[in-house]
């Protein structure tokens, strides 16, 4: 909300630098988002409020006049002007006079440019300065005539002091609805600064016949309209509002329209109560020959009305309307109707001040997309006690500035006034919440200036009985009062302590530990972690199959209001986004080795919330080694790089009994993919991505990408606790090589496990160091060569003993797999 300080000063005084004022407001939750200095460019030494003393014709130019001005200097000064709104013989107008040397805007430049005023001779007459237009001062684009100030403008005052102002842009949080007005800000400011708050003048001279019998008001739906009050002002003369009011409205961000509308807006900004003026002629009676009638009721489904912004709206039956005897004349709390608005020939005004249910106003304003100033205020809550006060204020202003005759009295329909809230506030509440010791009197002294009624008493302990003023709709419990005390005491003045309460029980978090372990291991191996959005699109998921077969969205969680179609479905795999990230990076770098740990979202039968398992994806593509002078052309990552990463990961985590089985998955190369399992549980899959899938993701043809996806919780479940120490033998190890030929169908890992089983603990190391397929072993066969190391914990093994072990292995392999031993 924009708060011109010149306006705010009418209700509160302060005596501190602007920065301190802003700080104090900001600390108390009225955050000053921006400070605008209006009129900063008006030099106080050269631009003055002046009075026209006399005007005479320029001797040599019909369209120019010579103006003699008094601007507070010892002598008057005569300047030349061509302004069409100054005429020979005029006197007494208040104008803005700029002396030689002043800096003004150039009204003829296309862009903002300043010029410095020089002494000049116009058609033979010396002119030391000029009278200014609004455009030259940057107030508006008006440049046909000069600016004429109100009669009470103080001659000899720097124009900046008279017309300039500082405008604070306050960020009003939802709990500060009361501060959506000058008086609301002023009341808080006064309490914060320790100064006095003044309410606006509430005098009213009502000379017309009583409103009673001239209009009729009823509320059909009091649940949405707790109060409706009205005043009647007759014989108004529509015209511009006074200059000071226009000035305030403009600085506060509202456009002046006419005196009646401006007064309603002015009082709204001043007091926070939106008002609405109906042209009395347009408010129809509900019975033949009756008086103009207002009925506040819910709309009929499909009912229509044009609002004063010219837009036609259709209502549903949850929307509250202001109607007359015939049909709608306004949307309650949101905007008035076009047909009942005040126009230039309006003479009688029915003035509404009402209170509406804030939720209803919010909903209506949002659904009809009318974010009016009134709706903004009603949508946050307006004090129902404000109606009569603001009617008095507005009616008096209409009497003064629109020549209206105010009818005596108001119509006030207020079926169920709320009870006044009283909160008992034991002093210990403050201690418990804020950690400070305050006496009941100290607390009362802090709350009273904010408008709270305070009575100090003693119950079980010293207590303040706090009466909550009607405008504090946000205060209903003790904690709310604690905040008020903190705001006045100063958040910064509160002590700073560390929790004295007992340290709660501390526990390990295995899920988090596993995740951090995984991350550390993968980073250690040389992979970079990425994060991607949780939302995806089905076209991207479809690309995971070679032919990009469409994916059925059934079974996916879907956003009702996606920002873009690209991010519409909650992901169920990380694979497609991983491939997107790979493709993107391959455009810039030769080597992509990445992983992501993130949730996927799976609907659960019979449960409201979905399952959110954490998945790990790993993707490798491009050069295995960074390119350098040492390795100009490194081979690309392949399946075994990925498998090596997965094995290292599992080994570090202590996963035992790790198994890989060849697998067919649409995303993978049909012959280069495997499932990963341990302890009988499938943990995930890994493989080289199918070339057509790569192509779907715009990965260059021929570029191999290896991809794995692993369930983190399943993996963690297989991770063993700390390893047991194995004594290290000091005895020498005996190494033996073993080369054998087996059928292609016998998996190498099965052979290795068999060797380990037969040899038992004496076999301390086994390395498969060669795999051969080809003519020497024949079709359908492969040769596997192992290096074996035997070692006993407590004695030196002879080579004979090692050979005996080797022979037992050979025998088993021959019997079980028909292995042939190569020399």
């Amino acid at each position, binding site marked *: 909300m924009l708060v011109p300080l010149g306006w705010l000063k009418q209700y509160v005084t302060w005596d501190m630098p602007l920065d301190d004022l802003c700080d104090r407001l900001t600390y108390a939750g009225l955050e000053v988002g921006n400070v605008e200095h209006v009129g900063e460019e008006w030099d106080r030494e050269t631009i003055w409020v002046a009075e026209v003393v006399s005007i005479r014709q320029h001797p040599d130019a019909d369209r120019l006049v010579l103006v003699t001005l008094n601007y507070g200097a010892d002598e008057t000064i005569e300047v030349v002007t061509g302004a069409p709104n100054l005429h020979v013989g005029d006197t007494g107008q208040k104008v803005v006079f700029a002396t030689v040397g002043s800096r003004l805007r150039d009204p003829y430049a296309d862009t903002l440019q300043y010029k410095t005023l020089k002494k000049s001779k116009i058609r033979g007459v010396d002119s030391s300065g000029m009278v200014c237009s609004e455009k030259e001062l940057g107030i508006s684009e008006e440049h046909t005539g000069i600016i004429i100030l109100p009669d009470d403008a103080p001659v000899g005052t720097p124009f900046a002091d008279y017309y300039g102002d500082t405008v604070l842009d306050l960020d009003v949080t939802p709990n500060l609805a009361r501060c959506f007005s000058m008086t609301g800000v002023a009341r808080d400011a006064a309490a914060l600064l320790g100064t006095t708050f003044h309410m606006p003048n509430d005098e009213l001279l009502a000379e017309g016949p009583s409103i009673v019998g001239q209009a009729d008001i009823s509320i059909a739906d009091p649940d949405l309209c707790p109060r409706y009050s009205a005043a009647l002002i007759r014989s108004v003369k529509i015209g511009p509002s006074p200059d000071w009011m226009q000035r305030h409205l403009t600085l506060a961000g509202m456009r002046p329209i006419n005196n009646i509308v401006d007064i309603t807006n002015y009082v709204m900004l001043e007091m926070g109560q939106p008002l609405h003026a109906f042209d009395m002629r347009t408010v129809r009676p509900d019975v033949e020959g009756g008086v103009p009638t207002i009925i506040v009721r819910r709309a009929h489904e499909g009912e229509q009305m044009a609002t004063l912004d010219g837009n036609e709206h259709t209502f549903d039956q949850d929307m509250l309307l202001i109607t007359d005897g015939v049909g709608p004349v306004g949307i309650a709390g949101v905007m008035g109707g076009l047909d009942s608005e005040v126009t230039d020939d309006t003479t009688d005004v029915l003035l509404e001040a009402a209170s509406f249910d804030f939720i209803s106003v919010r909903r209506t304003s949002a659904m009809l997309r009318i974010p009016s100033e009134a709706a903004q205020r009603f949508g946050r809550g307006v004090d129902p006690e404000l109606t009569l006060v603001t009617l008095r204020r507005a009616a008096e202003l209409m009497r003064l500035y629109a020549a209206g005759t105010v009818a005596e009295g108001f119509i006030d329909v207020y079926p169920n006034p709320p009870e006044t809230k009283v909160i008992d506030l034991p002093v210990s509440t403050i201690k418990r919440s804020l950690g400070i010791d305050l006496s009941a009197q100290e607390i009362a002294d802090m709350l009273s200036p904010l408008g709270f009624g305070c009575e100090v008493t003693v119950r079980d302990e010293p207590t303040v009985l706090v009466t909550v003023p009607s405008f504090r709709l946000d205060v209903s419990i003790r904690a709310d009062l604690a905040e008020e005390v903190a705001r006045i005491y100063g958040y910064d003045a509160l002590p700073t302590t560390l929790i004295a309460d007992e340290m*709660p029980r501390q526990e390990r978090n295995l899920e988090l530990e596993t995740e951090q372990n995984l991350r550390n291991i993968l980073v250690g191996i040389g992979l970079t972690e990425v994060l991607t959005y949780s939302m995806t699109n089905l076209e991207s998921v479809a690309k995971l199959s070679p032919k990009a077969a469409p994916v059925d969205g059934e079974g996916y969680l879907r956003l009702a209001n996606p920002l873009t179609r690209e991010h519409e479905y909650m992901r169920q795999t990380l694979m497609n986004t991983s491939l997107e990230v790979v493709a*993107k990076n391959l455009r810039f770098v030769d080597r992509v080795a990445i992983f992501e740990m993130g949730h996927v979202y799976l609907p659960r039968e019979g449960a409201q919330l979905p399952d959110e398992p954490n998945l790990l994806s790993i993707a490798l593509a491009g050069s295995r080694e960074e390119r350098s002078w040492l390795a100009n052309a490194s081979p690309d990552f392949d399946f075994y790089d990925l498998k090596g990463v997965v094995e290292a990961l599992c080994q570090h985590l202590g996963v035992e009994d790790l198994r890989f089985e060849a697998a067919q998955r649409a995303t993978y190369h049909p012959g280069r993919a495997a499932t990963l399992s341990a302890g009988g549980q499938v943990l995930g899959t890994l493989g080289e991505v199918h070339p057509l899938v790569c192509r779907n993701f715009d990965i260059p043809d021929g570029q191999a990408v290896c991809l794995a996806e692993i369930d983190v919780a399943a993996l963690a479940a297989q991770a063993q606790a700390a390893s047991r120490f194995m004594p290290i033998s000091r005895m020498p190890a005996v190494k033996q090589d073993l080369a054998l030929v087996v059928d292609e169908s016998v998996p190498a890992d099965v052979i290795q496990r068999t060797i380990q089983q037969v040899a038992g603990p004496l076999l301390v190391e086994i390395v498969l160091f060669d795999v051969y397929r080809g003519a020497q072993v024949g079709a359908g066969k492969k040769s596997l060569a192992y290096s074996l190391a035997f070692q006993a914990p407590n004695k030196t093994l002879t080579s004979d003993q090692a050979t005996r072990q080797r022979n037992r292995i050979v025998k088993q392999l021959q019997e079980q797999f028909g292995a042939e031993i190569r020399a």
Partner: protein
Amino acid sequence: MLEELERIKAQAEQELAQATGLGDLEAWRLAYMGKKGAMTTALRSIGSLPAEERPAAGKMGNLVRVALEEAFQARQQALEQEAMNAELASGALDVHLPGRPQSIGHAHLLNETLAQVYEIMGRMGFQVFRSPEIEDDVTNFQMLNIPPHHPARDMWSTFYLTVPGLLLRTHTSPGQIHAMHRYNPEPFRVILPGKTYRYEQVTMRSEQTFHQVEGLAVGKDITMADLKGVLTNFARQMFGQERQLRFRASYFPFTEPGAEADIDCILCGGEGCPVCKYTGWLEILGSGMVHPVVLRNGGYDPEKYTGFAFGMGIERIAMLLYGITDIRYFFSGDVRFLRQFS
């Protein structure tokens, strides 16, 4: 004989000095010290001298032999040294060439930053507690004292799912409810981290997905002063020991009193710069005492328990700490961004 020995010694020494390689050395050894070498032959002939000459010749012969052996060893060592020096000299490497690149991995900056928060808060007894990213309206809003159509709902633009009542959590705060239900009736301190979502256009400064971390302490004797203490402690470890903190009143429906905390600008130290928009202060987190309604919704009696909560955006913290100007990098997957941080 003595002259003969002298002559052999002089000649041997001269030849030894001329030996330039290990081959020369071996030839010399054979020529003098070998089985048929000159020195061996001369020593052998001493036995055939007259008895009175033998002691002197024997003594002399021994001295010469020892002298030659020592000379040989010295020469051998010198030549070996020379040979090694030559080999080392030829094996010099160009130390200016770059080393062999090692593949270095990088954890995501946001997870690194989160880990830092866990570490600092862990020392004050706050344990990581996770809760779902897909929430219902009740837990994300209503239990947190934000009824439907409440004006405070304007503070969060929400992604809704097509399943009625389900949404993507707009903040980590629903975790407060989950944590209270988990620990009730014990006092506890937790950190609630994770992805959060807002229905907002993605720009340099705003993301539809971002990370928050929230702290919550519930106990029998926890005050706003404790909140200030914990946050000051946290901020100084996170942003530097010299950091100043200021607390301002603010509004969150689930806190009362509510506060925002600013640190003096880490770039300009409070002088004013574009990053702090010339205020000298950077807003880093929202906080407050847990609202009694929220405590009650979590199963804690607000007459007996109090608590505080605070929350911050991890992206914002990382952007401030590392001078990152565009929030979109975090979810870009661009390794050229990610590998800048380790």
